[in-house]
């Protein structure tokens, strides 16, 4: 295998299991690539070379001893900086968690390691998941591999950039309002946010508890199916995992047709605020889906107009509560401990970046006496109304479709002056987040300048498998997901 960095996760594992290569060789090659062609991207915050090498050698020994190995054995994987891996640092992109070492592994990463993956290191992210560009990280900005000085999207920008640059075939992230899907779109790769409750959040550093989902990014939908099968399922450590959710097969059928599939195109997510080049690319993708036998029908999500407001009021309220644990007492940064109030205030003021502080202030406002009914309470009503809209839409179709992001990647610094501009970038992804639905972004075209454009598919709760099968069929008939910015 001369170019292991160009192989899918499933192909790599098959090659390792079949003896065509070794996990140690693949791991060494990718670690060299991260430090070589990938060095300037700042996709990774840190690599775990010793751990990765030891894991890879262990997989090779198990193969040599004839042990049965699963479809992800030997696959090098990156992990977002907000997912705990026992014994390794995790900072959620924040100075306030400098030096924090995880005392246990998140359930998602523990299940993946049990499946035999090789953890390469942790990837960059917007601080605490708050951002759509991976510019707010305390570790610096991540570049889009398709253009230096362009954003990789966020908050899982490091994971998306790592896959796009072929530094690893599979990278784990999290999605609260679009943080898997949007960077996948901007970096030309495929990203999955599962149904809320399918994958345990235990060990995911919390941003917004009712919205956070562990997800993954790969080039190929088939790799995401294998990932989802490995990590899904109830967990006593996360009471919000749902016991009875339809299983997802780790392998996807090589369907030639989408005949019988009805895909809704909600008017509210397919026009307003979206750039002409993105609309053009998604229109062409709709044509491909029709040519594969899918029927596309118009539908409505009338309450989607409130989605950005509802999301930011709910997410920031939950974040203000979740981030109150960072007080200088239990972990992380600690400053000025002359008294408790001074210590907590000084620690948080120095430890949190500007965007985190703004969102905490917004959440504190939305949940405070005199305003909580009108803002947080009304946001929850809007959330239910939007969930009802989705339920009505899904009576007439199997999936919904929209662009993932209103634009392709753009230069660093855009939106610095005005948070509202930044928050409106999430308008197409937050609806599925609010309703707890599974959603996927896959490459569907590019701008005249060659920047990737993503198409979003959304499914009813539990129908993650249908999303993946549809994406897999689309990818068998297109090659957008195979565009590579680096040799």
């Amino acid at each position, binding site marked *: 295998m001369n170019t292991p960095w160009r192989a899918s996760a499933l192909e790599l594992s098959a090659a390792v299991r079949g003896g065509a290569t070794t996990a140690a060789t693949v791991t060494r090659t990718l670690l060299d690539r991260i430090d070589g062609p990938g060095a300037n991207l700042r996709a990774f915050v840190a690599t775990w070379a010793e751990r990765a090498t030891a894991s890879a050698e262990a997989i090779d020994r198990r193969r040599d001893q004839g042990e049965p190995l699963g479809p992800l054995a030997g696959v090098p994987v990156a992990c977002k900086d907000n997912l705990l891996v026992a014994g390794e640092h995790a900072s959620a992109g924040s100075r306030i968690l400098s030096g*924090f070492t995880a005392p246990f592994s998140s359930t998602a990463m523990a299940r993946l390691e049990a499946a035999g993956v090789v953890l390469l290191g942790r990837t960059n992210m917007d601080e605490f998941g708050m951002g759509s560009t991976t510019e707010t990280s305390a570790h610096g900005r991540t570049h889009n591999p398709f253009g230096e000085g362009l954003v990789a999207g966020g908050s899982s920008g490091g994971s998306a950039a790592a896959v796009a640059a072929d530094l690893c075939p599979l990278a784990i992230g999290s999605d609260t309002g679009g943080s898997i899907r949007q960077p996948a779109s901007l970096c030309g790769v495929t990203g999955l946010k599962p149904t809320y409750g399918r994958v345990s959040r235990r060990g995911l550093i919390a941003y917004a508890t009712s919205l956070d989902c562990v997800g993954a990014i790969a080039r190929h939908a088939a790799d995401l199916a294998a990932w989802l099968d490995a990590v899904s399922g109830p967990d006593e450590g996360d009471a919000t995992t749902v016991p009875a959710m339809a299983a997802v097969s780790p392998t996807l059928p090589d369907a030639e047709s989408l005949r019988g599939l009805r895909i809704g195109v909600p008017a509210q997510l397919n026009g307003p605020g979206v750039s002409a080049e993105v609309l053009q690319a998604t229109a062409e993708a709709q044509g491909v889906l029709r040519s594969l036998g899918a029927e596309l029908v118009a539908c409505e999500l009338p309450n989607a107009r409130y989605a950005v407001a509802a999301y930011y009021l709910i997410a920031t309220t939950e974040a203000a509560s979740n981030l109150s644990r960072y007080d200088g007492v239990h972990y*992380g940064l600690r400053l000025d401990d002359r008294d408790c109030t001074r210590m907590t205030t000084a620690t948080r003021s120095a430890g949190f970046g500007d965007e985190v*502080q703004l969102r905490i202030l917004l959440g504190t406002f939305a949940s405070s006496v005199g305003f909580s009914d009108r803002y947080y309470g009304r946001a929850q009503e809007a959330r239910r109304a939007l969930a009802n809209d989705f339920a009505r839409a899904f009576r007439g179709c199997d999936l919904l479709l929209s662009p993932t992001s209103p634009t392709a990647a753009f230069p660093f610094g855009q939106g610095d002056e005005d948070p509202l501009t930044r928050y409106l970038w999430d308008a197409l992804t937050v609806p599925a987040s609010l309703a707890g639905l599974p959603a996927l972004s896959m490459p569907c075209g590019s701008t005249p300048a060659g920047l990737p454009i993503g198409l979003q598919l959304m499914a009813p709760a539990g129908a993650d498998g249908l999303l993946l099968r549809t994406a897999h069929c689309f990818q068998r008939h297109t090659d957008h997901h195979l565009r590579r910015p680096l040799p």
Partner: protein
Amino acid sequence: MSPNPPTQPEIDPQMLIRLAALARLELPTSRVAELTSQLGRLVAAFADLAAADFGGVHEIPPTPGALATPLRDDEPGTPLRPEQALANAPRQANDCFVVPRVIDA
């Protein structure tokens, strides 16, 4: 639309400072005007939502498949060992997290 839309709250520097105190944040003087403006703009942008009428829909959407808050037996789980819990403590002593005095002498 509600027949009596509530008046918009005014986000002024005094409110911002109060919110910051609640959140245990100290804002540099140089940022107060900027943050007041940013927070005010966001609240104004969310006014449509604050004034909207969703026909009395009050329930939070249920997690798919879960019809009620999940309960478990009142059995102790497996906590972190003290040394694990304290491993990241900025200050610790005698198996405790050390904090500044909270009661005035």
